[in-house]
């Protein structure tokens, strides 16, 4: 089977072109690093099926990052390369093109973002460019699909003209002469997007813009999340599902081991979806009724932030602060992802260059960045006691994030390299890719979380019946009661936190805690252990020794913070 490789710089619309070619849903993003696990798909090519690979964005075949190494390795297995080139930054993009031509692999160039050339004042003489490169050059607009058909028709015309291997200086000199012959730049005025772009990487206006964007994001996330809960999911569960479960409960006699596992305990003769804790009550209500709405709203907003190109600007803005935590500005992106789910967040720490940074970032995320599932439960349970208590939980976690990062920066050996990133221009987010990505992430949550949530609730009920939790509770009572001021039964929730944080927080609900105890419980639960899924990726990314260190830091930090909160609240 013919293997076609898509190669090009980051942010040139490679992934958008990939989904146009294959129809396979790939994640398209405005910041480099997301396609580090390359995507594969298939397309029809002259009556045959060809394999299409979306290689990670790369500036050069002399790799300077892990993503570029992967791109280089993929190149060895390809038959034809579609070199996706940003028509706006022809000079820089041609560096990779020349390297590809030197390798003697058949190349066809897709000159993408062609629609942008007009208003950015870039004129390119296509015939001359084709002649000088010696390969087909097709103009495309991947987001709208313009030129894609012509590109497909030209794939078989990909050629490998004889370009002798050159040195770096020779390549740049070569590019200089090509540019002189094919490109003409007209003077033009700055657009509003460029003015906004400049303003958002300035300390003062950028800071104000960042605060406004983060506040608006938070508001929109809550608005959509609460809206879904109040107008869709609560009514569904209360008016449709509750009567069915009550009927089933009566059929099962209203009590007994099987009843307790499947339906849970009735609270005052009624179903309480949070407290009953059966498979068909809390087991469904926690993922669908409480967490899903916030997963949808969070990933919707995150997708927009990603595809407009705002996140790299936030990275620039946060760089000075992040340096104090032993990271550079780019590390804000995995941390933000962690507010959705810690698993992709820890995978995303791969975009950081050094082991030290990856360790610090992963440790900080797993301790002090609560995932959307946990946050949804915090909103639901702690929020019921008053907004002030929610603020204490968030404020505490933020302070822990800063202090812990500061300490890790001072104690972890190694160096942290400096920020160096391209800032893509602001773009209106393509709704197709925003919604596609939202669907993927939501589906990913459901597929991953529901079996674990149901499993966790099953295990909890069985362990309850066997009396295992009583034993653990008695054993850890000194710490839990003495240090944290929580009833000893709360330890079961802390243990279950290893399976699912959302379920675990739900277990605090029937304990009749004071608001202060609930705050302590939520914070300790957020910090103490990563959930099992996070633990597994941390192990894969960091190795045994480092994850042991991270867990040690976690336990100490959680107990110290919980103890302090218990003292001052």
């Amino acid at each position, binding site marked *: 089977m013919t293997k076609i490789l898509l190669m090009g710089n980051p942010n040139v619309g490679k992934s958008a072109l990939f989904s146009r070619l294959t129809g396979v849903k790939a994640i398209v993003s405005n910041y480099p690093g997301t396609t580090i696990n390359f995507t594969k798909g298939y397309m029809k090519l002259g009556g045959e099926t060809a394999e299409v690979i979306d290689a990670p964005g790369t500036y*050069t075949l002399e790799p300077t990052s892990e993503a570029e190494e992967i791109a280089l390795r993929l190149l060895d297995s390809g038959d034809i390369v579609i070199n996706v080139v940003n028509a706006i930054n022809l000079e*820089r993009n041609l560096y990779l093109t020349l390297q590809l031509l030197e390798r003697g692999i058949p190349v066809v160039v897709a000159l993408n973002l062609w629609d942008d050339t007009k208003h950015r004042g870039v004129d390119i003489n296509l015939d001359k460019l084709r002649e000088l490169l010696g390969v087909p050059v097709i103009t495309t607009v991947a987001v709208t699909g313009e030129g894609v058909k012509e590109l497909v028709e030209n794939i078989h015309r990909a050629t490998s003209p004889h370009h002798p291997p050159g040195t*770096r200086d020779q390549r740049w000199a070569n590019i200089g002469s090509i540019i002189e012959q094919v490109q003409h730049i007209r003077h033009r005025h700055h657009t509003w997007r460029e003015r906004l772009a400049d303003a958002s*990487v300035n300390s003062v206006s950028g800071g104000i813009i960042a605060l406004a964007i983060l506040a608006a994001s938070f508001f929109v996330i809550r608005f959509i999340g609460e809206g879904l809960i109040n107008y869709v999911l609560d009514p569904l569960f209360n008016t449709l599902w509750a009567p069915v479960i009550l009927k089933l409960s009566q059929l099962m006699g209203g009590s007994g081991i099987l009843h307790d596992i499947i339906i849970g305990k009735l609270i005052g003769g009624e179903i309480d979806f949070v407290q009953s804790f059966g498979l068909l009550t809390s087991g469904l209500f926690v993922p669908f009724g409480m967490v899903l709405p916030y997963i949808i709203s969070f990933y919707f907003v995150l997708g927009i932030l990603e595809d407009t190109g705002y996140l790299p600007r936030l990275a620039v803005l946060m760089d000075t602060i992040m340096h104090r935590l032993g990271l550079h500005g780019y590390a804000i992106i995995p941390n933000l992802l962690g507010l959705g789910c810690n698993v992709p967040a820890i995978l995303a720490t791969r975009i950081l260059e050094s082991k030290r940074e990856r360790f610090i970032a992963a440790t900080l995320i797993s301790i002090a960045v609560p995932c959307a599932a946990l946050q949804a439960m915090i909103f639901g349970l702690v929020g019921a006691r008053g907004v002030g208590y929610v603020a204490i939980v968030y404020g505490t976690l933020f302070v822990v994030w800063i202090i812990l990062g500061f300490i890790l920066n001072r104690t972890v050996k190694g160096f942290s390299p400096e*920020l160096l990133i*391209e800032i893509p221009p602001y773009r209106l987010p393509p709704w197709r890719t925003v919604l596609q990505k939202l669907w993927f992430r939501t589906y990913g949550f459901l597929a991953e979380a529901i079996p674990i949530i149901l499993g966790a609730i099953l295990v909890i009920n069985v362990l309850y019946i066997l009396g295992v939790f009583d034993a653990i509770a008695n054993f850890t009572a000194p710490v839990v009661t003495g240090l944290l001021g929580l009833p000893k039964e709360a330890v079961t929730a802390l243990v279950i936190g290893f399976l699912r944080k959302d379920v675990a927080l739900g277990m605090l609900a029937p304990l009749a805690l004071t608001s202060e105890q609930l705050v302590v419980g939520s914070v300790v639960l957020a910090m103490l252990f990563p959930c099992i899924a996070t633990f597994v990726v941390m192990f894969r990314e960091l190795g045994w020794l480092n994850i042991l260190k991270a867990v040690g830091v976690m336990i100490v930090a959680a107990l110290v913070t919980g103890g302090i909160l218990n003292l001052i609240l």
Partner: protein
Amino acid sequence: MHGFRHRPGSRFKPEDNKITLAQLKNGQSGTVVEIQGGRRMVDRLNALSIIPGKKITKTSAMLMRGPVTIEVDRAEVAIGFGMASRVVVKPD
């Protein structure tokens, strides 16, 4: 042969009208003259076409030794302050 070599972190002293990217004013343009860094830094900058002879314009700088943003070939690139202090430019 290896007698004259800037250690990483060594600050460039202005001479012959040359300053570092960190010292360039916002909105000011210049030409990259030299990159005083190790191979890795030169490689990373080369990938973003920040090489000697290249025209650049500084678009902004964050306060408190934050990153410097420049425009190079109609692309915007953010560079950490320390790295920007080792890129020597000749202002226009």
